[in-house]
């Protein structure tokens, strides 16, 4: 049997199931005699005091075990218990309605939970669990019913629960709990965030797993895919045992590389940065060891709304990323890349026969100077706070590059006239997605500070194969010698002018591609945040000089399968790191 949930923390857990029965303390309303109301209010306050003392202890233990950062949530829980608008109201309710402490607390808690669960943002909805957690702790003091302790287990189990509160999660004994699975929750629940930090594999949002799974069932928890296998056959079990061993070895190794430079064994350093789609992603980039952002897609600012974002809104978003990562970290902001498969209803563009070959990205911006300038102003203003670089998408000709730079110059002159600060030395580069641009890269290189190769589009334009069309998907070949030769032309053209060349397509994070790209001399690799550490581990094991030879051979081969096979033969580390 297989159950599907939400992948919360990657890794594999294998062991018997243990179902944590929910402590649904059923609280009944009891009327309190007028004479006893004071005593009841005191009873509630004392229970709150004891709960705070317990939280203080959990906070200290967590700080010692997981670091101050994770302990702060319990400091917040203590603040919540001190809050007049929460506990104060519950005490007030005991007095004004002459009801028992448990009922008053439950009522006030439920009102708050209702407010949070009605919010339209998943992250805020999760805050309901903070209040459930502290309230449950006070209730358990009041009723004397404490949770069964996990320390009773004798072997590592896979824990199933309706929900795990932050304090449940923080106090999990890693030697007794191999992984956990919950019925509710999402990727941003506190328990999910903590599970990732504690490196406990976890799957959440399984709906009714605590009812489907029985105590003692053999469980495989796959935290990467977000699935649970119940009573698997021997073969599956043995496959997962091997995957688990491989994963754990890789994790150990990757941890050592989070703060390290991305440098080959023979001392050649490159930059590993992340692709992000909104300011929130910057945290994930930082936590995954990215050295900055190599592609900040700005479409999110324009999508899902009915009018253009203002300069101020954009400025805040760009500045937020700089603030999150730090002023010295490079952040490459790509100007609006709309059109193609991304539509903006309020731009009112007519339907096209061939949207990928049509009116999109820089082609629209050069026509719509008003909206282009608004974005350029916001990017320039944000550049005053950090290491921002500007990048144009979809340039096909030198004339387009010059036209874009002309509008940039105009915008800079306007800011100068208004006395608004910006980084006058901000690097300005372009994406190479169109084969025409790759072929004249030598001319373009003279007028930019950098190139970033967008392989997803470059492959589809070079092979003339729609990447969404399954009938021609066999032609989507990033390793095709035609594509690799274009990539080499672009890198060589940049280097000849003393400029750098990066890549921000999926290929940059592909472990098989990295040795070839390093051999071709790529300077910057921009990928999804989760690919950064595996890529860094690989790069640290490689030898740049040997790869130059490998890349030369690859470019002379006839088929992409041959190239992939060549890499796997010569660089065994690639397959060792692949999951």
């Amino acid at each position, binding site marked *: 049997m297989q159950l599907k949930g939400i992948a919360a923390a990657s890794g594999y857990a294998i062991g018997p199931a243990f179902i944590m029965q929910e402590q649904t303390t059923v609280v009944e309303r009891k009327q309190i005699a007028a004479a006893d109301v004071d005593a009841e209010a005191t009873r509630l306050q004392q229970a709150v005091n004891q709960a705070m003392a317990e939280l203080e202890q959990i906070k200290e233990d967590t700080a010692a075990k997981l670091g101050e950062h994770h302990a*702060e*949530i319990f*400091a*917040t829980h203590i*603040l*919540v218990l001190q*809050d*007049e*608008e*929460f506990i104060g109201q519950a005490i007030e309710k005991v007095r004004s309605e002459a009801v028992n402490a448990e009922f008053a607390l439950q009522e006030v808690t439920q009102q*708050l939970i209702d*407010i*949070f669960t009605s*919010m339209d*943002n998943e*992250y*805020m909805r999760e*805050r309901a669990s*903070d*209040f459930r957690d502290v309230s449950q702790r006070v209730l358990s003091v009041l009723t004397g019913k404490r949770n069964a302790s996990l320390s009773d287990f004798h072997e590592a189990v896979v824990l199933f629960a309706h929900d795990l509160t932050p304090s449940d999660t923080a106090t999990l004994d890693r030697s007794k709990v191999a992984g956990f699975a919950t019925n509710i929750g999402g990727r941003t629940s506190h328990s999910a965030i903590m599970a990732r930090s504690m490196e406990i594999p976890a799957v959440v949002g399984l709906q009714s797993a605590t009812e489907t799974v029985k105590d003692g069932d053999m469980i495989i928890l796959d935290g990467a895919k977000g699935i649970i296998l119940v009573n698997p056959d021997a073969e599956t079990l043995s496959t997962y045992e091997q995957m688990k061993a491989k994963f754990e070895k890789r994790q150990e190794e990757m941890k050592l590389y989070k703060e390290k430079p991305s440098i080959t064994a023979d001392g050649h350093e490159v930059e590993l940065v992340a692709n992000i789609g*909104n*300011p*929130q992603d*910057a*945290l994930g980039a930082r936590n995954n060891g990215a050295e900055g952002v190599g592609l900040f897609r700005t479409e999110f600012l324009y999508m899902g709304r009915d009018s253009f974002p203002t300069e101020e*809104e954009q400025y*805040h*978003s760009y*500045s*937020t990323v700089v*603030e*999150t990562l730090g002023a010295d970290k490079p952040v490459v902001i790509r100007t609006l890349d709309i059109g193609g498969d991304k539509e903006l209803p309020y731009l009112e563009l007519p339907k096209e026969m061939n949207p990928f070959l049509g009116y999109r990205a820089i082609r629209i911006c050069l026509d719509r100077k008003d909206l282009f300038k608004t974005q350029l102003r916001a990017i320039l203003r944000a550049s005053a706070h950090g290491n921002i670089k500007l990048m144009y998408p979809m340039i096909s000709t030198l004339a387009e590059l010059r036209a874009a730079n002309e509008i940039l110059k105009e915008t800079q002159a306007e800011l100068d006239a208004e006395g608004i600060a910006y980084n006058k030395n901000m690097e300005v580069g372009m994406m190479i997605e169109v084969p025409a641009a790759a072929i004249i890269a030598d001319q373009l290189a003279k007028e930019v500070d950098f190139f970033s190769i967008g392989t997803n589009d470059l492959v589809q334009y070079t092979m003339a194969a729609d990447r969404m069309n399954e009938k021609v998907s066999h032609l989507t070949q990033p390793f095709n010698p035609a594509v690799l030769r274009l990539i080499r032309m672009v890198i060589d053209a940049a280097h000849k002018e003393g400029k750098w060349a990066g890549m921000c397509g999926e290929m940059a994070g592909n472990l098989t591609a990295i040795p070839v790209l390093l051999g071709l001399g790529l300077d910057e690799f921009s990928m999804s945040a989760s690919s950064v550490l595996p890529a860094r581990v690989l790069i640290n094991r490689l030898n740049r000089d040997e790869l130059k030879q490998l890349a030369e051979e690859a470019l002379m081969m006839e088929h992409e399968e041959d190239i992939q096979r060549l890499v796997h033969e010569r660089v065994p580390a690639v397959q060792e790191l692949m999951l």
Partner: protein
Amino acid sequence: MEKQFTIKNPQGIHARPAGAIMKKASEFANAQISLEFNGRKVSAKSITGVLTLGMKAGDSVTVITEGEQAAEALEAVGSIIESVLD
């Protein structure tokens, strides 16, 4: 006094920033400090109140202060609102 501030924290005002706002507001014992957002007004000195506003990145909140040091309180609380704490 009142002034608008924009939330810059990518995760919005979750538990930790709400705690920081509440602590900063509480330093001004003789000022009344409220936050108004989406038609609701709460005391900035209550972490519960601040959290229940459910403010996200990019949202603008009005800080309203009265009493002693109203101007200082306005700027102090505002700068916490605009800071990025994760």
